[in-house]
């Protein structure tokens, strides 16, 4: 008797929990899209605040560049080792060049760059805007007749959109060079064949597909992080929550979006 009652309350509680979470998530998604819409419309309204945009481009780029470089270099290098191991089994070492480059350009370059920028620049955006919210700086902007979306979010949005493809190009090249160095100098693959194969089998589509992904990831990071920061509640603790929330959510969205983009772009 009591057991069924207990199970009953547990069941209701679980349901209520799931329901509550779902409602909150829907609210988040809704407000996120509203913010995205506002950001887009403010992006095209003059005057453009060039100073703020440059500042953000610099912040996002410089923040993440060293980590992106190291990530890309070692990813390219390990990619070479693993591809070599696999291809050697059916004597196809000569074909490994294009595989390394393709993996880098289509997947690892944009995705890993996106994940790193989420952790660095995305976290910084959420923390900064969150702090501005809880210390009433965002309210102060409004009282000074300045739209906070235009002043704060638009420059970060543009920075994300511009910097992610740039960092991805850097990551792609670094990874491909790393892969080449390991293949030729450690695994003793013929350098000439490696380069020729890579050139013959790569398509421009591989490069641009990856860059389109990078742009989308840039939008995801800036919109999610700004959204989380902008609607922070509850003092310093709230800022912490907003920051981790922003990182987790942008990473998940990047990975999910990555699948659908790959299905769309590369078919």
């Amino acid at each position, binding site marked *: 008797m009591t057991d069924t009652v207990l199970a009953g309350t547990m069941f209701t509680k679980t349901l209520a929990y799931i329901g509550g979470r779902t409602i909150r998530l829907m609210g988040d998604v809704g407000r996120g899209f509203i913010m995205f819409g506002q950001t887009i419309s403010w992006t095209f309204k003059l005057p453009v605040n060039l100073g703020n945009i440059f500042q953000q481009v610099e912040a996002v780029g410089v923040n993440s560049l060293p980590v992106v470089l190291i990530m890309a270099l070692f990813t390219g290098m390990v990619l070479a080792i693993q591809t070599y191991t696999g291809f050697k089994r059916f004597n196809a070492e000569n074909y490994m060049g294009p595989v390394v480059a393709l993996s880098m350009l289509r997947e690892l370059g944009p995705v890993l760059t996106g994940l790193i920028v989420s952790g660095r620049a995305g976290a910084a955006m959420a923390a900064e805007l969150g702090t501005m919210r809880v210390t009433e700086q965002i309210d102060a902007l409004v009282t*000074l007749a300045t739209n906070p979306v235009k002043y704060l979010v638009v420059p970060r949005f543009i920075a994300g959109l511009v910097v992610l493809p740039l960092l991805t190009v850097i990551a792609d090249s670094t990874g491909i060079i790393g892969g080449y160095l390991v293949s030729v100098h450690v695994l003793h693959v013929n350098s000439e064949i490696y380069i020729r194969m890579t050139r013959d089998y790569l398509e421009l589509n591989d490069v641009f597909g990856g860059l389109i992904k990078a742009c989308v990831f840039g939008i995801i990071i800036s919109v999610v992080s700004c959204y989380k920061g902008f609607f922070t509640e509850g003092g310093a603790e709230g800022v912490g929550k907003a920051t981790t929330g922003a990182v987790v959510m942008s990473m998940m969205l990047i990975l999910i979006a990555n699948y659908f983009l790959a299905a769309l772009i590369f078919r």
Partner: protein
Amino acid sequence: MKIGRLKPPLPRVGATLVAYFQMIHVIEIVNLHKAFNKKHVLQGVDLQIERGETMVVIGGSGSGKSVLIKHVIGLLSPDEGSIVVDGVDISHLRENDMNELRKRYGMLFQGAALFDSLTVWENVGFSLMQHTTLSKEEIKEKAKQKLEMVGLKGVEELMPSELSGGMRKRVGLARAIAMEPQIILYDEPTTGLDPIMADAINDLIIEMKKRLNVTSIAITHDMVSAYKIADKIAMLYEGRIQEVGTPDEIKRSVNPIVRQFITGSSVGPIKAV
């Protein structure tokens, strides 16, 4: 032009009358209600503020004083009721119109809310930078003047994090008066300051009123400050204004809620939580 002169004087009398009433009440808050997640913070606030007057709203922590003042500058919009400024109901104004109005306001936040990525002078000159075509040098010069008005010299190039609490409030005040506002809102201007610094801020508020001829609303729970700066004091409790009067009238109030608050007693109708 000529036809205009031939018009009967009646509309002009009407306009003068309207202007006269506007002159008396700059800000009229009527039956203001606001709730957050079922928490009914403001439950029908009525308050009139006359031109050139300093209205001090007193009330306990969490009684909704900040919520009230945020409605006056359009940071929050009411669930019910209206806020009329110079004859215009601002509660449903579009953003552009609201921003035009906000340029005539100055607001000093409780924690000063200085932009911590900008220098002191960039903070003070923020509105000028956003809304005028003045050059950087001119803005810096104006910012210096405003800083001098609040008793600060040689701090233009510092970052807000390098300032003390009292200095931050002064910079916040300098920023609030940068566009020569007609209405200034103060959110707990003296809270968190030592008594001497608090009194210096009180003096500044009185001086602003004299020099700029502004209408002000200040919210506070500091009675010393309230008595010193107020032309009128209003007590907010349980979402409503309990009593409005001059400092002397408030001192002599027989309302037990007001009496308990101004004497700072834990015994009475207000329960300390």
